[in-house]
């Protein structure tokens, strides 16, 4: 048995999302295994980002259930929670396909904002902090330490006080991941983290994801177009096409699934072999 059926951290059950007449996701079910790196792949417009938006509460699903099993055995029904609660309570963090950093704030500030909820409690909802009571000072220093830790991991410690908008594209992507990690998530959803990276940056990203999974008990779901990345780092692959799941399994299984090949080549299932012959597979 595989982790995703045995010990799922997230169960997506019969998820359907409609926009007016358009059904972006149709009766989608899959599991995300605890500690796995799960890849969600599919052609453009397949509905991958929409799945993320449903998981993280930015869209309310038309139908379906999304169950988050925290490691503490708490269960959260994500479809009933508002977006910020999903991060704050269910411990799901995400990044965006088009990077959303706080460009006019420094890199350090970006990571401090991510620790908002913890610091709010430490400052007794601002009142204690304003009056200089309680352990706010210490919590603040701790938060800076956490930020420093992640900045060292993503090798941006030297630029901590530079505005985030000044970073290169690859650095921004990594900063966004670090920022999501600063919320202390159990499930991290990355929307095309490797898009636009050069091979070296792509390799660094892989290492970062492996590290996150190993050292921080965080399960990762990622959307990715680059098959070599998917095959290399993921434990589990789910394939979407036109909002429908067409394949689900280990990378090897998915790689050889004719449905997937058909979807990617844009032909009917029956014609796959024909096409394969033509291109000499």
């Amino acid at each position, binding site marked *: 048995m595989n982790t995703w059926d045995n010990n799922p951290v997230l169960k997506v059950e019969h998820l359907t999302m409609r926009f007016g007449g358009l059904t972006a996701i149709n009766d989608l079910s899959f599991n995300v295994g605890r500690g796995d790196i799960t890849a969600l792949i599919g052609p453009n417009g397949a509905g991958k*980002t929409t799945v993320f*938006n449903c998981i993280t509460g*930015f*869209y309310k699903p038309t139908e379906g259930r999304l169950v988050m099993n925290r490691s503490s055995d708490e269960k959260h029904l994500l479809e009933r929670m508002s977006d910020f609660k999903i991060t704050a309570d269910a411990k799901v963090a995400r990044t*965006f396909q088009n990077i959303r950093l706080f460009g006019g704030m420094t890199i350090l500030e970006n990571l401090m904002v991510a620790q908002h909820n913890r610091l709010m409690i430490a400052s007794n909802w601002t009142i204690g902090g304003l009056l200089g009571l309680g352990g706010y000072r210490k919590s603040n220093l701790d938060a800076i330490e956490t930020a420093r830790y992640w900045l060292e991991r993503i090798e941006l410690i030297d630029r901590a006080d530079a505005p985030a908008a000044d970073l290169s594209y690859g650095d921004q992507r990594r900063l966004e991941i670090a920022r999501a990690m600063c919320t202390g998530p159990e499930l991290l959803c990355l929307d095309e983290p490797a898009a636009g990276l050069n091979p070296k940056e792509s390799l660094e990203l892989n290492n970062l994801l492996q590290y996150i999974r190993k050292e921080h008990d965080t399960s990762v779901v990622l959307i990715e177009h680059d098959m070599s990345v998917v095959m290399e780092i993921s434990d589990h692959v789910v394939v979407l096409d036109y909002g429908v799941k067409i394949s689900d399994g280990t990378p090897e299984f998915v790689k050889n699934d004719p449905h997937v090949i058909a979807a990617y080549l844009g032909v009917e299932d029956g014609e796959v072999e024909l096409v394969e012959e033509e291109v000499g597979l």
Partner: protein
Amino acid sequence: MDYFLQQLINGVTLGSIYGLIAIGYTMVYGIIGMINFAHGDIFMVGSFIALILIVALGITAATPVLLLILALALVLVVAMALTAVWGWTVERIAYRPLRGSFRLAPLITAIGASIALQNFVQVSQGAKNKPLQPLFSGGFQLTDGGADGSGIVVNLSYIQILIVVTTVILMGSFTYLINNTNLGRSQRACEQDRKMASLLGVNVDRTISLTFVMGASLASVAGLMFLLYYGVIDFYIGFLAGVKAFTAAVLGGIGSLPGAMLGGLLIGLIETFWSGYFSVEYKDVAAFSILAIVLIFMPEGLLGQPEVEKV
């Protein structure tokens, strides 16, 4: 029932005026996404220009009807042209240099331009109310109030007919202009994507200028109508009329011309009925409350398109 009918007539008249102003807001918002705060004051300038021209031409109630109509048409055309220059100038000085910059900056310059226009008129024309003797009297008496005089006399005055007819004609021609000419096409292109439009050879600056010119000339028509209908203007009429017309534009769905007209009618009706049945003092509260309610609960308005926020 008679009272209701009278309020309805008055409401439609007032609504036509708001609708004409609202078109200016809606077109400008559609094309550059800013609230042209000075538009209400352009309307006020328009009504002053019309008043001065009327006095200069010596038009009075004693003028023979045919001549009166001709003279008013002349006033209308000249006022439209001169007010258009005002609209153009405001855009050129206060908005164009800030195109593509910080979003708050044109809002502040718009408020500055509004303050400047108001006080310019106060300085150049004085702060006193300017009452104009009615030029038209009479109209159709729709009901006679009953034989025993218990009912209410419902009047449809010539002035009201004139206002509504002019509005309908102008609305029609402007809608035609925008739907069927190159200018309209350029305008829609700029609404969609200004950069792309300019790459494809649309003269964006000129298109935007023309939008302001059209908005201002329609506002001056509204100014003339306001003057004829209420018979008194001052330098401060632009603010309230502007806010209400903006409400109309939003209610109808900002960016939509028929929406602006529909919104104008609704605001005019609501305001007259509110004053007629509830309280005159709080009629502005009614307008402002509608503005708030519409924006909060249906920001896309009646005929506008909802804005989808993709994540």
